[in-house]
């Protein structure tokens, strides 16, 4: 399931709703991305996330489908916010639920790595010196690229 929205989300409520009455689920991993002050100068006070709505949905659908093909998941959820967000606000939520933790952990990392390099979102940071667009990080591309090498074996435990 994917949602792209301006509103905040409640991680606990989303997690309970995703588990619901599915008693095959034995492990759930949640990842939350938050607006930080900036690694370089700490001068960021807020940011605005712009996106390409139709393509965002398509890309998020695609990576969620891929994760479900590669790992044995019972349920998954991606929520990504757009619009203006202040320091400490939640940006993105990835929840993966599986019978065993190995699938949930691996799929969670895969989803956030791929989301960062393929979903068409752009961050505009507000700083004392004016607004600046965040540049893409080579480390993110490398993190996503490791998933294209050899398929992970499922670590069911």
């Amino acid at each position: 399931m994917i949602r792209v929205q301006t509103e905040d989300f409640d991680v606990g409520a989303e997690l309970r709703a995703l588990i619901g009455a599915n008693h095959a689920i034995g492990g759930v991993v949640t990842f939350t991305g938050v607006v930080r002050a900036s690694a370089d100068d700490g001068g960021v006070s807020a940011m605005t996330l712009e996106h390409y709505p139709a393509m965002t949905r398509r890309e998020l659908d695609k990576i969620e489908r891929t994760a479900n093909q590669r790992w044995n998941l019972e349920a998954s959820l991606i929520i990504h916010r757009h619009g203006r967000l202040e320091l400490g606000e939640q940006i993105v939520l990835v929840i993966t639920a599986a019978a065993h933790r190995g699938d949930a952990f691996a799929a969670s990392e895969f989803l956030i790595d791929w989301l960062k390099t393929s979903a068409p979102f752009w961050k505009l940071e507000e700083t004392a010196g004016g607004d600046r667009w965040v540049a893409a990080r080579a480390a993110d591309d490398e993190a996503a690229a490791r998933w294209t090498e050899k398929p992970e074996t499922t670590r069911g435990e």
Partner: protein
Amino acid sequence: MKVLYFAWLRERAGVAHETVSPPAAINTVAKLLDWLKQRSPRHAEALADLRVVRVAVNEEYAMAEDAVGPNDEIALFPPVTGG
């Protein structure tokens, strides 16, 4: 053909979206980018460094040699920074 611009490409080009009618010979992503550069000095500036321009054709990532046609929606944007 509809062309969309996002993030700093939109700011530099000075336009969020426009409808263009390039000649029939402009039939690939690479040719279209070269053709768009001629539209205005702002377009030329926005598209000056194609290493930092990503292209989607009808909401799918596209490469330089991929085909484009009159009914396509082309999106031009910087490398993505979500998550």
